[in-house]
């Protein structure tokens, strides 16, 4: 039986145009809406699969504003069984602050007889992209950590993690308890079902305040890259553009 904790972050959906808040300290989500990163969606899926295979609990955790409960519900709707909400302004927390807060929850749950043998996180958050919370967490907990795994399974007290590295497909086998950060691509996150959503609504979220004062991020400010003037020439629409394209290819001398 493996109890898994999976950490997700509420982030502004940045697939469209990105707008900054007036103070230049964060991305404005008023119009774009919120989501979690693909890596974290895969981590949730892996957490659910690992607990289904071993019969444990899958707890989802977030540190964020009250509205971040939406991301917790999304994870509950696809199979997580419990949720922890550290209510705080995530923007005021640097990566080591977040790691310390997650560690505080893990230690407290462990003391209360609810250990999290495996903690899954995303490889990097979709907004701050710090690439480090999972690793810092491992040091807070004194646990081994595998970074950037696409596949994660649990077998006889070990986590087996597969990393799609430029140097090949690399496998790690690490004794539990452990920390693993997840890179998208190894599993397909499932869609929530209607009964899943209903069940998610009924789960009582453990809401808590941060354990310590954050030291904060080292941010001075955010900037948008200057817009590039476009000088694109549209050759046409659909298949009808083919002659114009081939004219261009001939003009460039690339059609032999």
């Amino acid at each position, binding site marked *: 039986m493996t109890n898994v904790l999976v950490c997700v972050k509420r982030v502004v959906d940045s697939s469209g145009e990105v707008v900054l808040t007036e103070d230049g300290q964060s991305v404005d989500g008023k119009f774009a809406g919120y989501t979690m990163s693909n890596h974290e969606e895969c981590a949730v899926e892996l957490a659910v699969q690992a607990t289904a295979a071993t019969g444990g609990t899958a707890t989802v955790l977030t540190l964020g504003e009250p509205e971040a409960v939406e991301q917790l519900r999304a994870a509950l709707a696809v199979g997580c069984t419990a949720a922890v909400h550290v209510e705080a302004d995530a923007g005021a927390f640097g990566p080591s602050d977040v790691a310390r807060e997650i560690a505080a929850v893990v230690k407290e749950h462990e003391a209360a007889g609810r250990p999290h043998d495996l903690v899954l996180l995303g490889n990097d958050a979709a907004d701050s992209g710090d690439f480090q919370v999972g690793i810092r967490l491992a040091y807070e907990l004194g646990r081994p950590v595998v970074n950037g795994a696409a596949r994660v399974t649990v077998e006889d007290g070990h986590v087996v993690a597969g990393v799609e590295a430029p140097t090949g497909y690399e496998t790690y086998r690490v004794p539990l308890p452990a920390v693993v950060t997840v890179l998208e691509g190894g599993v397909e996150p499932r869609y929530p079902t209607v009964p899943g959503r209903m069940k998610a609504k009924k789960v009582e979220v453990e809401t808590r305040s941060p354990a310590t004062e954050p030291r904060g991020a080292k941010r001075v400010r955010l900037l948008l890259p200057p817009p590039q003037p476009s000088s694109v020439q549209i050759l046409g629409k659909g298949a009808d553009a083919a002659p114009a*394209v081939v004219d261009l290819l001939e003009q460039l001398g690339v059609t032999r």
Partner: protein
Amino acid sequence: MILVLVETDASGADEVSRETITFARNLSAAGGGVPIDAVVIGDLPVPAESLTDQLASYGVRDVHHVTGDAFSAYGGASWASAVVSVRETTGSVVVTAGGTPRGMEVLAHLAARKGVAMAANVVSFGGLSPFTVTRQVVGGAVLEEMVLDERPAVFTVAGHAVEASPAEARGDGRLVSVNPEVDTADLVARVVSSDPPAADLSGGLKSARVVVGAGRGAGGANKFDDLLELTSLLDGELGVSRVVTSLGWRPHHEQIGQTGSRISPDLYVACGISGAIQHWAGCSSAKTILAINTDAEAPMVSKAHYAVIGDLHEVVPAINEEIKRRRG
């Protein structure tokens, strides 16, 4: 002193590592010529002398080569412990690496061990006092200015943010072999087995005159026939976005971008690629870019020289037919 973690491939120091050293030379100059040392870990793919010679041409003083059984297999913690030990003996005030999976991982371990901040994906250096860097956040859509006021200052340099170029003045390139002790706890999470990657054929991509690019818009692993036909009609190479490699549609060596190859063809035909900044980092040197995209607002379309708005599975076959028709 500035310490650069160097990763290697069949060419010696890999391209992103050479870019990182090039970046470090700016810091060095701002600091009045502080020396740059390199640390390289484990078995080398090239003779040590050719690596030190290459690094000397980039202005590197000492090359600390970490050897020993503990480093026969990769592990983030064991590599970081080695970098920490080299940083202690050299007293480096800056430790940097490329923004690669290993560069990020090892420096995050190092930062956690030293209790200092780490800035990921830095693209420019703002000044020494305070030590300020600008880095990519929000998938590259936003830049963050960050102050690294602790020592060592730890950061990774985003791939292809600068172009790798040898130094005006050669460094010593002295080989220093080190064999640091490793704590057994740091050996727990190490690679236990690895399947070699598909043969690295990215050389052809990097030097191709024509590259046909494919992104998520291709729609599936079995939907590359038209794109491959166009590639062959133009005597070019196929390149793809990270989404395509992450989804397993095509092998990693075909990836273009910050964490893939940097190309500089005469023509890049970007099909079904949105043009995220990380992709752009790999293709911006193309002389001419033709984008094929259903979305007239896609960044790739506005950055391109030419564009066709439409479904690539209609446009590309029509182009193929037109080429074949004109050839008769």
